[in-house]
């Protein structure tokens, strides 16, 4: 009866909880992955294109946090436009 044996959970509560948990996991992964990329010298446009979101969105969500963490961010002039 375990839902783990089936790719589609039968119980709506399990399916909905999986959605909520995946969103949380995705948020956690995004925080870690964006920081990892920026520390590796990626630019905002590269990160935003890789994530499939606008540069404004990724900047708004992460810039303050990364600056506070002392991550060396690439200057605007070095970015692809």
């Amino acid at each position, binding site marked *: 009866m375990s*839902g*783990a044996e089936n*790719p589609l*959970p039968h119980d709506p*509560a*399990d*399916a*909905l*909880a*999986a959605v*909520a*948990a*995946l969103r*949380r*996991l995705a*948020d*956690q*992964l995004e*925080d*870690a*992955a*964006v*920081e*990892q990329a920026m520390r590796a010298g990626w630019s905002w446009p590269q990160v935003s294109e890789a994530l499939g979101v606008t540069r404004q969105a990724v900047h708004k969500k*992460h810039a*303050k*946090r*990364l600056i*506070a*963490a002392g*991550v060396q961010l690439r200057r605007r002039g070095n970015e692809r436009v």
Partner: protein
Amino acid sequence: MSAFDRYLHAVLVRATHEAHEDGSATTDAHHLLLSLAADQGSTAQRVLAAAGLDRAAVRAALDREFEHSLSVVGVSAAAYDLPRPSRGDRQPKLGASARLALERSFATARKKDLRSSHLLLGVLEAQVGTVPRALALAGIDRAELADRVRQALDSPDQ
């Protein structure tokens, strides 16, 4: 500011801190539960502790619910070995589940009669979501726990 207002404020501050530590953009009902379990000396905390739910136990139950809910769709959070991200100074906002828990709390009593137990009841009354799932996985009978909270409310020392 009443004693309850001060208590509520402290609970919310601690819950927001828990959300921030979680890297969550919102303070959710399960962060309220962590906060209530961590508060020393309140009736809510005593009832939770008597059921074996100190803050660490609540945290463990929530982590287990997270792993379990992911496993249902074949995902394991442990499979990702990314470094822990830096936390910014952005304050989490009150999320929908926490709002519902507070609304349920405030609906249970007149404002001047509100106690820590009402906050806990508001969290425990959720029928679906992270908190009931985590408690069920931890082997806690949520209805029985809620009854104990109500009994504590009726006892004369309240």
